[in-house]
C-alpha cells in the first residue's frame, strides 16, 4: 500500500496543531475557564512566526516569538475574564475577532513569499510532531501524578472551596490561560511554518474551534485528545486522497467533512448528560468573584 505511509504521515502532521491547541485549552478548562479565543491566538501565532521566519531568523526563534505573542493576547483575555469576571464567551470571541484582524494586518506584507520549512527528522516528520505527543504525555502525568495538577483540578471543580483552603485561584487560572495561549501560538506557528509554508488569510480555517470541540470530545483527558486529533487529521487528509481513489465528490463536500465530523463527534459525547456531568470541570465558564 504505497498510499498508507503518506496517509499516516499526513494524518500526524494535520493532527499536530490540533494537539497543541487542544492540550492548551484542556488545561485552561480544567482550571474552570473557557477561552473561545483559540482561533484568534492561533492566527496571531501564525502571522508572527511567518513574519519572523521571513525576516531570516531561524525557525525555533520564530516559534518562540509566536508563543510569546499569543501569550500576550491570552493575557488580555485573562485580565477581562479573571480581573473583571466578565462573560467568558464574549471575551473569548473578542479575542478571536481581534486576533483575526491583527493577523490580517500583519500579514499584508507577506505577499506570496514562502519560508523554509522546519527540517524533517524521523520517519519523514518534523520534530514538532513528536513534541506534540510528548506534550500530551507530560500533561497527563501533570494532571494525575503531581500535586500541582491536583490543585488545578480542584480549582476547576470548586474554586470557592480551593480558596477557602488557601489556594490562589486567580493566579492559578491566570497561569493556565497563559499556558493555553502559548500552546495556541505554537499551533499557529506550526501551521504557517510547516503545514502550509505560505501565508493565507485566516489560514487556521476553523481549526481553533475544532480544537475546542476536541477538548469536549476527549472529556478533558489528554490521551483522548490525541486520539481525537488523529481522527480529525485523518478526515482532513482524506479529502486530498479522494481524487486518487477515483471519488467524484465536489471539493466543497470534502472540505466540509471536518466540520460535519466535529458536529457528529460532539453529539456522540454529549448525548448522555451523566457522562458529560461527571467529567466536565464543574465551575467551567462561571465568573469567579471571591468574597473578601
Amino acid at each position: 500500500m504505497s498510499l498508507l505511509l503518506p496517509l499516516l504521515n499526513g494524518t500526524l502532521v494535520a493532527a499536530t496543531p490540533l494537539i497543541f491547541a487542544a492540550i492548551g485549552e484542556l488545561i485552561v478548562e480544567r482550571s474552570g475557564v473557557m477561552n473561545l479565543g483559540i482561533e484568534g491566538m492561533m492566527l496571531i501565532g501564525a502571522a508572527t512566526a511567518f513574519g519572523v521566519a521571513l525576516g531570516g531568523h531561524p525557525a525555533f526563534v520564530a516559534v518562540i516569538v509566536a508563543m510569546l505573542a499569543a501569550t500576550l493576547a491570552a493575557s488580555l483575555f485573562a485580565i477581562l475574564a479573571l480581573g473583571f469576571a466578565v462573560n467568558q464567551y464574549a471575551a473569548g470571541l473578542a479575542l478571536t475577532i481581534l486576533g483575526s484582524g491583527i493577523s490580517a494586518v500583519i500579514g499584508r506584507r507577506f505577499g506570496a513569499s514562502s519560508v523554509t520549512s522546519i527540517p524533517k527528522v524521523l520517519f519523514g516528520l518534523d520534530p514538532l510532531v513528536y513534541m506534540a505527543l510528548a506534550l500530551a504525555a507530560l500533561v497527563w502525568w501533570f494532571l494525575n501524578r503531581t500535586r500541582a495538577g491536583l490543585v488545578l483540578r480542584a480549582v476547576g471543580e470548586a474554586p470557592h472551596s480551593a480558596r477557602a483552603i488557601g489556594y490562589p485561584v486567580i493566579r492559578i487560572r491566570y497561569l493556565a490561560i497563559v499556558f493555553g495561549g502559548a500552546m495556541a501560538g505554537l499551533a499557529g506557528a506550526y501551521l504557517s511554518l510547516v503545514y502550509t509554508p505560505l501565508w493565507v488569510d485566516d489560514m487556521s480555517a476553523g481549526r481553533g474551534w475544532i480544537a475546542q470541540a476536541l477538548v469536549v470530545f476527549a472529556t478533558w483527558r489528554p490521551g483522548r485528545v490525541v486520539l481525537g486529533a488523529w481522527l480529525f487529521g485523518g478526515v482532513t487528509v482524506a479529502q486530498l486522497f479522494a481524487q486518487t481513489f477515483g471519488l467524484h465528490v465536489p471539493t466543497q463536500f470534502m472540505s466540509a467533512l471536518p466540520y460535519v465530523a466535529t458536529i457528529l463527534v460532539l453529539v456522540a459525547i454529549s448525548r448522555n448528560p451523566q457522562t458529560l456531568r461527571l467529567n466536565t470541570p464543574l465551575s467551567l465558564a462561571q465568573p469567579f468573584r471571591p468574597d473578601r
Partner: protein
Amino acid sequence: MRPRLALEAVTKRYGSFAANDSVSLTVAPGEIHAVLGENGAGKSTLMKIIYGAIRADAGEIFWEGREVSIASPSAARDLGIGMVYQHFSLFETVSVVDNIALVNKDRFDRVRLAARITQLSERYGLPVDPHRLVHHLSVGERQRVEILRCLLQSPKLLILDEPTSVLTPPAVARLFEVLRALAAEGCSILYISHKLEEIRQLCDTATILRGGKVVGSVRPAQVSIAELAGLMVGSAIAPVTRPRAVQGAPRLSVSNLSVQPADPFGTALQDVALAVHAGEVVGIAGVSGNGQAELLNALSGERITAADRIRLDGVSVGHLGAGVRRQRGLAYVPEERLGRGAVPGMSLAENALLTGHRGGLVRRGFIGTGPIEAFAHRIIQRFGVKCSGTNAVAASLSGGNLQKFIVGREYSLAPSVLIVSQPTWGVDVAAAAFLRQSLIDLSRQGAAVLVISEELEELLEICDRIAVLFRGRLSQALPREAISIDQLGVLMTGRDLQPSAA
C-alpha cells in the same frame, strides 16, 4: 497556664456594618470552647479571621502567648489550627487521599498518605476508605474526612463550624466522643453552634455573640437553656403558637411513588406515600441526601412521574409540569434561594412575577407593570422585608429578608398546598419565628402545608404530624404529641421503620 489562643478587641467591618465589633476571647489548651450566637451574629466571620481566610481590621491575635498575624489558611495550618467547615470544602470528583493531600505539605506520596489516614481513622474511630471518591460518600462520612484532614496536621486548635446540622442524633454522640478524646490529649476546640442543648452537653466554656459583639462568657453547665437563649437573642421572642389542627380533606396525596434519581449520586425514592390535609402542617425530617431533593422535584413538577402517584385536591397531577401544578394551586419554597427561588439579578417586582403570574399580572401575553408592583409591594409590607424598594435587586437583600420575600410571595398566592424546604436555614431568629408562625397560620386558613427540614427542633415546634425520610423511604407520619426527639433520631438511622401508610 498560657492560653492557647487569645483574641483581643478583634474588629471586622463591611462598609458601615460591623460583623465583629471588638471581640475578645480566650481558649486554654484542652478546652472545648463554644461560640454561640444566632444566624448573623458574626460567628463565621470570626472563625474566618482565626483561620486566615480574611483579615481583621483591628485587634490582636495571640497564639500561645505570642502575637501573630495569620495571613492565610496555610499560615494558620502551620501554626497548628485546623478548620472543619459547615459546608464542606471537599472536592467531589477526587478521592479522599487526594483531598487530604491538597492541604498536606509533605511530598506528594499517595501510598504513604493513605496509610497514615487509615492509622488515624482507626485511632479515633472515624472509619473511612482512603481511595473512595468523595462524591460516593454520605454526609456523615464526608465530615469524617474533613476532620481527618485536620487531624493529620496534628492540630493544637480545631475549629468546627456547626458540625451537627447534618448529623443524626447517634452520629452526634459519636462526634462528641471523638472531640472529648482530642481535648483530653491537649487539643483545644472551638465549637460554633446555635444548638443550646449540645453546647451544654459538650462544652467547658461558651462565649456568646450578638450583633457582632461579645455579650457574655459562661460555663454552660452552670447556666440554664433559657438563660443561654436570652443572652443569644437579647430580647424575648414570642414563642410560636400552634392552635389545634382540624384535619380537613387531603389536599396533597402521594402514593406508591418510586423515582430513580436524575443525578448519578442521588437517592432513589421507594414506595413513598403521604397525605397532607387541609388545616395541618406535616413535616418530613431527615438529613440531606436521603431523597429530599428527588421528592421535592417530584412534588413540584420539575420531575414528571405517573399521573396518579401525586394528587392535588383529588386530581391526578403526577404527569403535569411545574407551571401547570402552580395553576392548580401548588406553591413551593425551595431551599436554594438565590438562583432558584429568586433570580439574583432581577428586581423584587420581577421576582414577584416569577411564580405570581396567575391572577391578572399577565394579560394576553403582556406584563402589567402596575399590578406587579402592587403585588410585590404587598409582599414587602406584609412580611416586613427590609429592602430599598420593589426595584431592589434580589441579590442585595440579606438571606433572611430574601427568604421572607420568597415565603411571602408563595403565601400571598393563597395556595391550596404549600411545600417548603429548609424554611429558616441561615435566617435570623426573629425572622425565623415570624416565618414559622406564617406557615402555621397558612395551614389554619385551610391550606395543606408540608415542611421538609433538617432541624428537628423546628419540626417539633410547628408540625402537627412528622414523618422521617431515610434512604428514599418515608416512614409513617406520626402525630406530634406521640413522638419524641429520640424516637425521631432512631427513625433517622433507619431502624424501626414501618411501611408507609397515608
